[in-house]
């Protein structure tokens, strides 16, 4: 019967029992139940009675009726905190060594966090200064090739104009084409990259101008320069009104008048320009350029809408353009269109192929925060370990505080306060470290113009959060652990401090594991760098030269001049060139599947000249007309298309049938960050030769290079030389590998330093806590072996266990990190881990040895006098 009776809800009762004074509870609980059943008796519904009950319970929470919660005492806390600060400083000064380790460790970690913060802030503010960033969108499309859907940042040529005509919501539209030209001003001639844009470009991207007017872009004969370019050609003077000659190609030249110069670009930019000229000029530069050709793509189309919500309506009506495009270009059939807002364009850039925005920092965005967290955790563990051990020396203080009347919470608050003091001290040092050491170093080697803006509001919020997080994370355990002891037991001296606490050991173990990871990372990154540097390019990049030529005529003249040079073993012409230019094309299998592949149009000598290695079949025959319809493919191609017998297979490109006659060993067309893609080589039409590549006799590279340069200057004094050593085509890649190695090494060294400092502090404290014991041992005749074994034993088991856990964790961690960074990561062997373990054990032994030595030198009498 009892159970069928309606009951008041449970939780308010629990609330009351927690908050209300014990002596009032019985009466109040009774009253509440009576109220509840009264409400029911008055024929109110059960939910209503419950509601009344809950409401009344909450209203009972009044100060008069509530327990006196410690910590909520109305007495002013100020003098107590003053005392905490005082004791904090005193105890810091009393153990200068461990205080230094704590503060230094934390400040290094905070410095690195700040660096990472600055980097992240820089990264997230890229391209965020444009006033219309929320209204400007880049038109992109999705297409499916080789079974995978990819987003592209280019657009069919007619799209921009149609968007502007068809949609009232499109306020402004801007088409973008980038082209290489030669630019001449007085005697200065340079290869340059210009941007053909609609006049709206400068309204959508609100770059302020230093000189001139943005509106001059609507004039077909006007050019707008970036500040750096203006300085390059004109020095510091105002170039507005000056004329520059733009050489599009041999036959077409045009004079432009400088109409404006952009102010210094903000550092946080991705999209920028060197030269802007009106889009219509493309018709002059390329008479064949057909703006209405749906089968062709242009570099970018941007639109600006009044209201971001208008975009939905536009996206819904994109279907008709898709149909038009698919009819014109079935090989690159668009599956759908999408618009990417400028505000998130940089962030998303890694997913958009061929877009005008780039993202070089993907790894950084993942890797840097990991590093920051790692450092903070390492420093916190240092702190925790040292705090627990050094608390042994402060037990009496805690005892006295407790006897005088400090509650446990008070002691916890005291220790946390102390922690915040230490962390704040570390913060000041950390800011200084970051500002004067880390940041300049980082800027120097990455070339990114980061700055620590000390007046930034977000920065201070971040710092505040950092101090509280670090202070509390590192202090909470020691505080609760230390505050637990009974004052009586402390004074009696019967406290077995720290020995029975498994958590202390776990903390030390974690610290060792962290140290293990960092050392492994340092060793493996160094190994990987050598691995990457010595990786085969798939062809012979040594003793090879190349030069870019504008047309066939130039090619012939250069070729004729160079083959006479006795140092040249072979020379060949090509449209594309390894490491410089590669085309992509769509290839159809007999089963009518289509694949996107890299295509190199070369001559018959190219394979020999570049030292590409043939695996199967034959190379192109010289002067054989029939070879015009043959292909040579790479191993990846064979593998990806699952060809058992690649030779003799027929494929179709642009409706022409090609037969595979040879297979080449895989070669890198791009740097090692990207995977080798399926590639085909076919014979180029001579008219399209744009590169002359040469194999030189071993060791004669430099002379031949000079000869090549001289020949070029002789024939074409007006056009700058564009060529080089094949070995240098990826110098920027190897620079970046070097840089990331350097960075990782420095970080790893700092981490190792932190870890060993932590261990040092810990061992020192531990040994000094046992001075009496060692002194007694010594008086009783203990020698070096006894003392050493006592100290070593204490850490032996722990170290072994930590290393057994640490080794696989390190292996996994470094492997994951390398896999993320490199397309062809080094296969990680045991050597890295073994080396790391050896280093770690040596560091540990060195630390222990200093302490053993200290004990041995100690006079037992002094040791016994302690306390």
């Amino acid at each position, binding site marked *: 019967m009892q159970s069928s009776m309606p009951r008041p809800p449970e939780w308010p009762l629990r609330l009351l029992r927690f908050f209300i004074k014990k002596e009032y509870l019985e*009466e109040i*609980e009774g009253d509440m139940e009576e109220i509840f059943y009264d409400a029911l008796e008055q024929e109110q519904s059960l939910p209503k009675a419950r509601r009344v009950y809950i409401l009344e319970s909450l209203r009972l929470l009044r100060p008069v009726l509530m327990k006196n919660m410690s910590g909520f005492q109305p007495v002013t806390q100020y003098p107590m905190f003053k005392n905490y600060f005082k004791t904090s400083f005193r105890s810091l000064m009393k153990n200068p060594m461990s205080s230094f380790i704590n503060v230094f460790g934390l400040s290094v970690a905070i410095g690195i966090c700040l660096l990472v913060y600055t980097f992240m802030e820089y990264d997230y503010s890229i391209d965020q200064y444009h006033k219309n960033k929320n209204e400007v969108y880049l038109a992109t499309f999705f297409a499916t090739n080789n079974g995978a859907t990819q987003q592209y940042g280019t657009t069919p040529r007619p799209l921009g104009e149609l968007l502007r005509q068809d949609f009232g919501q499109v306020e402004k539209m801007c088409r973008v084409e980038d082209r290489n030209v030669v630019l001449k001003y007085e005697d200065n001639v340079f290869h340059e990259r210009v941007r053909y844009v609609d006049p709206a470009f400068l309204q959508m991207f609100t770059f302020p101008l230093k000189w001139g007017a943005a509106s001059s872009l609507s004039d077909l004969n006007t050019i707008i320069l970036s500040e750096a370019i203006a300085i390059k050609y004109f020095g510091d003077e105002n170039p507005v009104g000056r004329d520059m000659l733009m050489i599009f190609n041999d036959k077409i030249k045009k004079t432009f008048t400088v109409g404006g110069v952009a102010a210094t670009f903000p550092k946080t930019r991705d999209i920028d320009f060197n030269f802007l000229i009106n889009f219509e000029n493309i018709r002059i530069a390329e008479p064949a350029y057909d703006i209405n050709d749906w089968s062709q793509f242009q570099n970018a189309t941007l639109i600006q809408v009044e209201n971001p919500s208008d975009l939905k309506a536009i996206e819904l009506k994109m279907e008709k353009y898709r149909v038009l495009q698919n009819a014109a270009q079935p090989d690159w059939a668009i599956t759908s269109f999408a618009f990417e807002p400028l505000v998130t364009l940089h962030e998303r850039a890694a997913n958009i192929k061929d877009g005008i925005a780039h993202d070089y920092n993907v790894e950084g965005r993942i890797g840097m925060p990991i590093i920051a967290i790692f450092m903070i955790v390492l420093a916190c563990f240092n702190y925790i370990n040292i705090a627990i051990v050094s608390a042994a020396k402060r037990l009496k203080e805690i005892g006295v505080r407790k006897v005088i009347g400090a509650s446990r919470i008070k002691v916890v608050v005291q220790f946390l306060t102390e922690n915040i003091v230490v962390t704040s001290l570390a913060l000041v040092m950390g800011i200084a470290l970051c500002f004067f050491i880390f940041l300049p170093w980082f800027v120097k080697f990455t070339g990114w113009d980061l700055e620590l803006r000390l007046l930034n509001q977000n920065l201070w919020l971040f710092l505040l959060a950092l101090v509280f997080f670090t202070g509390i994370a590192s202090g909470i355990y020691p505080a609760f652990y230390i505050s637990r002891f009974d004052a009586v037991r402390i004074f009696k001296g019967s406290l077995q401090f720290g020995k029975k606490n498994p958590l202390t050991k776990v903390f030390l173990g974690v610290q060792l594991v962290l140290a293990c990871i960092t050392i492994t990372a340092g060793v493996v990154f160094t190994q990987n760098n050598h691995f990457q540097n010595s990786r085969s390019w798939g062809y012979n990049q040594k003793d090879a030269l190349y030069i870019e030529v504008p047309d066939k005529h130039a090619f012939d003249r250069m070729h004729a001049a160079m083959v006479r040079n006795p140092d040249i073993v072979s020379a060949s012409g090509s449209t594309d060139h390894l490491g410089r230019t590669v085309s992509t094309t769509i290839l159809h299998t007999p089963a009518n599947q289509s694949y996107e592949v890299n295509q190199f149009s070369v001559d018959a000598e190219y394979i020999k000249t570049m030292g590409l290695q043939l695996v199967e079949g034959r190379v192109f025959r010289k002067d054989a007309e029939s070879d015009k319809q043959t292909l040579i493919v790479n191993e990846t191609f064979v593998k990806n298309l699952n060809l058992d017998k690649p030779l003799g297979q027929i494929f179709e490109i642009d409706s022409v049938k090609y037969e595979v006659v040879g297979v080449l060993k895989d070669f890198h067309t791009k740097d090692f960050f990207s995977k080798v893609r399926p590639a085909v080589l076919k014979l180029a039409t001579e008219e399209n030769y744009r590169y002359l590549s040469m194999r030189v006799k071993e060791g004669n590279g430099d002379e031949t290079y000079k000869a090549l340069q001289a020949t070029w200057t002789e024939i074409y004094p007006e056009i700058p030389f564009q060529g080089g050593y094949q070995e240098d085509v990826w110098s920027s890649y190897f620079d970046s590998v070097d840089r990331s190695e350097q960075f990782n090494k420095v970080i790893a060294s700092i981490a190792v330093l932190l870890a060993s400092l932590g261990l040092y502090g810990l061992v020192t404290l531990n040994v000094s806590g046992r001075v009496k014991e060692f002194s007694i041992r010594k008086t009783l005749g203990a020698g070096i072996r006894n003392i050493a074994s006592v100290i070593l034993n204490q850490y032996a088991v722990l170290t072994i266990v930590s290393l057994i856990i640490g080794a696989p964790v390190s292996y996994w961690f470094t492997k994951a990190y390398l896999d993320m960074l490199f397309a062809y990561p080094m296969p990680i062997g045991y050597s890295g881990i073994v080396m790391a373990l050896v280093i770690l054990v040596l560091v540990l032994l060195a630390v222990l040895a200093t302490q053993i030595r200290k004990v041995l030198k100690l006079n037992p009498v002094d040791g016994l006098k302690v306390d």
Partner: protein
Amino acid sequence: MKITKLGEFEELVLLTVVALREDAYGVEIKRELEERLGEKLSVGSIQSALKRMEEKGFLKSEFGEATQKRGGKRKRIYTATPYALKVLRELKEIRAGLWKSMPRLAHDLKII
């Protein structure tokens, strides 16, 4: 007399306690007052008034009987202390005195 630190609401509760005699426990006081005032009161407000007055020495209390409706929990019966009765009486006299001077005031007001 000295200032008694007896609030208006406290005075009402105190008077109810006196009026209810042996029935003066939390819920009954609340019921009685609600009826007289014609408005809803919360247990919290009654309880805090009772506790405060007990602290100030206006009330004494002891446990009464337990009923099933109360889940077997005992009532706490409140009684006014002689001091409280004295204060109440004094307050009443002061008020009465003040009321006596009222007609004249009211008259003055009327003139305006």
